[in-house]
């Protein structure tokens, strides 16, 4: 509560909170702001107004103009807000859970378990994040693209359940599967920070008296870890996770920009900007295809970063005295 009050008092984080709140309203009100066509099968597919290649400037019908292939920019931005929140929250949730599992097991059991898990973590960290995600997305799209993915399909189903509320018994449609390859790739190379963070926190906690007390009362390993240690160690991880939402949205947009994000026509900010790639020599004329989606991503990420920046200052006790 005290942290929240500080966040609201600090002008930087207040701006951030307002930005994020603003986007949340857009996401919730998407069907009102940009109503999908009545016969549309999936509201996330941006409606096209004809098939003319050249982007069209803002007009009454398309307030922010259209991209190449006549996808409506306003519609894409509004429904893309939902995609951004979904992508950011789901990736953060999964990476944090994976990281906490690995890190807490390593710290709690120590010894060779710790050694093996931490070397494992270091190997994943030995790849530049975006590059690794790009690689894995390409591999996953090849694997899922041929229709039979074996055990990997179950990973996709778990994520689909959380991200789309898609029941595991129903087959996955290719549109959401394509979206999930990028998400899975970012998850696979994102969990390491959390693992190292929680490991450090647990290492300093597990020798404390309350753990010994729980053990003398006959509590098992799992109970001690999940009921006694984790609740006390999880706070810094939650803070870092909240700060990462924006950067995951950024990374996902980068994948989309490189052509490995959602299916063409899906409401996804990164992909909307990638439509501008073919028009670089004529961008002076078609400025709206870069500026509108670009400003949207920037403001969204800025909101999260402002909150995160203030969070860090509030929580770092060494800087507390310095803020006059």
């Amino acid at each position, binding site marked *: 509560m005290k942290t929240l009050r500080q966040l609201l008092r600090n002008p*930087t984080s207040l701006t951030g909170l307002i930005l994020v709140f603003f986007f949340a309203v857009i996401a919730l009100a998407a069907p009102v702001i940009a109503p999908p066509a009545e016969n549309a099968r999936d509201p996330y597919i941006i409606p096209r107004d004809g098939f003319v290649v050249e982007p069209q400037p803002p007009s009454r019908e398309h307030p922010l103009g259209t991209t190449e292939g006549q996808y409506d920019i306003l519609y894409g931005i509004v429904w893309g807000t939902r995609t951004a929140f979904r992508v950011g929250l789901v990736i953060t949730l999964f990476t944090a859970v994976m990281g906490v599992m690995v890190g807490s097991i390593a710290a709690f059991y120590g010894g060779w378990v710790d050694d093996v898990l931490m*070397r*494992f973590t*270091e*190997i*994943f960290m*030995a*790849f*530049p*994040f*975006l*590059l*690794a995600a*790009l*690689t*894995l*997305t*390409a*591999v996953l*799209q*090849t*694997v899922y*693209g*041929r229709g039979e993915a074996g055990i*990997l399909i179950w990973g996709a189903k778990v994520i689909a359940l959380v991200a789309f509320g898609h029941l595991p018994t129903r087959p996955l449609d290719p549109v959401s599967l394509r979206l999930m390859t990028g998400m899975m790739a970012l998850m696979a190379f994102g969990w390491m920070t959390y693992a190292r963070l929680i490991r450090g926190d647990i290492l300093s906690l597990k020798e404390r008296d309350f753990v010994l007390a729980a053990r003398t009362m006959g509590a098992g390993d799992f109970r001690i870890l999940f009921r006694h240690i984790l609740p006390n160690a999880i706070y810094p991880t939650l803070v870092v996770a909240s700060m990462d939402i*924006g950067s995951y949205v*950024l990374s996902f*947009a*980068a994948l989309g*920009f*490189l*052509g*490995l994000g959602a299916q063409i026509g899906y409401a996804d900010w*990164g992909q909307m*900007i990638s439509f*501008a*790639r073919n028009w*670089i*020599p*004529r*961008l*002076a*004329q078609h*400025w709206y295809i*870069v*500026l509108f989606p*670009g400003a949207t*991503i*920037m*403001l969204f*990420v*800025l909101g999260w*970063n*402002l909150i995160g*920046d203030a969070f860090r200052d509030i929580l770092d006790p*060494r*800087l507390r005295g*310095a*803020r*006059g």
Partner: protein
Amino acid sequence: MRTYIIRRLLILPVLVLGVTILIFVLISMLTPYERAALYVTDIPKRQGAIDDVIAKYGLDDPIHEQYLRWMGKVVRGDLGWSKTDKSPVAEVIRRRLPATVELTLFASLPMVGVGIWLGIQAAVNHNKFIDQILRVNSIIGWSIPIFVFALIVMMIFYARLQWFPPGRLSDWAQRIVLSDEFSRYTQLNTIDSLLNGRGDILLDAVRHLVLPVLSLSYLNWALILRVTRSSMLETLRQDYLTTARAKGLTERNVVNKHALPNALIPVATIGGLVLIALLNGVVITETVFNYPGIGSFMAQAAITLDVISVLGIALYAGVVLVVGNLVVDLLYAFLDPRIRLA
């Protein structure tokens, strides 16, 4: 110090081995047909030719045997066949590496200088106007995706003003560089043109480098600025600086001679982060600016799902990062005596 270095050096092969295993796990997710591209040097026209390749190279063999065979090839510098470029992956990397090296070199040198200088300015003027401006700027800079930034500078400086073109060299310069009268000592156009005494080519190379260098470095100077600022703030509050001031030293002297060396130690630790940002950044920057380096090739290969090329470059980048991190760690130990004793 020596045990520290030895310990770090011993981890290196473990990490490199891990990197290769991870890449191979990804390769083995592909079917034998897709993996055949690791070995063939041309798309076979004959029916059943792929099956011969699978049999010949044992693509259905147990996984550990395949790994060893693949490693044998990797060690000899063979990374398979790139269907995007229609040449061996290793050959593509060798051909395109100088362009990427030139770009990252020019991006990293000024960015470290600018970032540190701005960080000091922000810390010395803590909570004053200049600090707030730099702070807000670095947060905003941190929030602009690199591809949006790159497209915007292209929009202004290329599409509208026609100052800086995309690519690496203009056609006329490219012809001269590839001709016999121009010796390519380093393959870096800027340095080679100086060595050949060709001012016009130097100018052309620089004109092509300005925008990609700007896009690749702005993100990093924001990062360096923030780390330098917070580290400098902490150092400035230490007692020994009060002592220095009490001795009557000028503020300039206190900041530059007494505070800065200690404040820069944590800045060295983000060397690894900067390297990651550069390796990630070249993929996007080179793609936007149509710059013929490794990054744009990787993006191109990834879109066409040319997995063999992508994995080859990922392996390469992984090894570069592991070695780079080792260098950063050793540098850090060299700068900070406390680490050596630990």
